[in-house]
């Protein structure tokens, strides 16, 4: 289901994005994530492959369903909340089984497994911080707004735990759900970068995207 197809869902006439607005938002996020991939690539010392972003409006529950269909094992996620003209949650998600390999790839090769395990939580938070901040900063700069970012937190568990969180978000709430697959093929690491924004934020981002587009619109 796309943002455009989701019209008339009885959701208080929530303003959704036109095709061009969605294209523009996807491009802004694509630029942000590509910058973030450059940062991650430097950290893991390997190429990071990215998919084309997907931008959809769906309920939080549907987002959980989407993720659990793709990943049925336990997950690790680093999450950062962002607040400002638009607000939401940015997540770096990967299967738990690849978490140690990701951490190992950024640490000194001479460390023992025990030392790597000790540093895992901290290293994951740092990876998330670099990737998610890289993405959000580009978005904020391109849309000429500032965003406050929370400290990264590491979560472990099912798709539900990762996407609904400990605060038990309303599973029926409609959100803008943006995802990009990433992979470090040389190390068999794969995962997702995801952004979730609620409907008031979609309204705000729609206005910002329109302002952004105004500079490039054809005569």
């Amino acid at each position, binding site marked *: 289901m796309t943002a455009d197809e989701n019209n008339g869902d009885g959701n208080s006439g929530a303003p959704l994005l036109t095709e*061009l607005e969605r*294209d523009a938002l996807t491009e802004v996020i*694509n*630029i942000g994530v*590509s*910058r973030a991939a450059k940062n991650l690539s*430097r950290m893991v010392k390997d190429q990071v492959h990215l998919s084309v972003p997907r931008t959809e409006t769906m309920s939080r529950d549907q987002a959980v369903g989407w993720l659990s269909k793709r990943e049925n094992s336990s997950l690790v996620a680093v999450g950062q909340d962002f607040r400002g003209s638009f607000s939401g949650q940015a997540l770096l998600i990967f299967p738990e089984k690849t978490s140690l390999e990701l951490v190992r790839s950024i640490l000194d090769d001479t460390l023992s497994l025990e030392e790597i395990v000790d540093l895992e939580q901290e290293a994951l938070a740092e990876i998330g911080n670099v990737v998610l901040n890289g993405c959000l900063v580009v978005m904020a*700069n391109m849309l000429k707004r500032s965003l406050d970012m929370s400290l990264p937190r590491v979560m472990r568990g099912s798709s539900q735990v990762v996407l609904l969180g400990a605060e038990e978000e309303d599973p029926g709430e409609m959100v803008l759900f943006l995802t990009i697959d990433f992979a470090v093929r040389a190390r068999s690491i794969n995962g997702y970068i995801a952004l979730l924004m609620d409907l008031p934020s979609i309204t705000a981002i729609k206005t910002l995207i329109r302002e952004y587009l105004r500079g*490039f619109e054809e005569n």
Partner: protein
Amino acid sequence: MTRTVLVVDDSKLARMVVKSILAKTSGDWQIAEAANAREALDVLATKNVDIALIDFNMPDHDGLWLAEEIRAGNTDMPLALLSANAQDAILARARELDVGFVEKPLSEEALTAYLSGAALKLRRAGK
């Protein structure tokens, strides 16, 4: 001299940004557009294109794939990747293919600098 620039990007916004910069800086240049690599090859087969500006992250085939395809038939057309994905491996492959790199978000200065260099290269080659 009027040039034709092919802009290949799956994002309409990205194509609009390039067109807007070109309209300001090189108003008499022609622009051809393609939303993916296959469409770009179709345009190249039917139009005289001088320069191609190619997004890296596109569905089905990425920008480097397209650059390789173009290079197989045209060794000297100025080509540039337009991307924020400035990873070392991507930059290295672009260099091997003699493909320039202009980082997104695009600035007028960076794109104009690339296009001026490309136009000079074409003039020197008598094109």
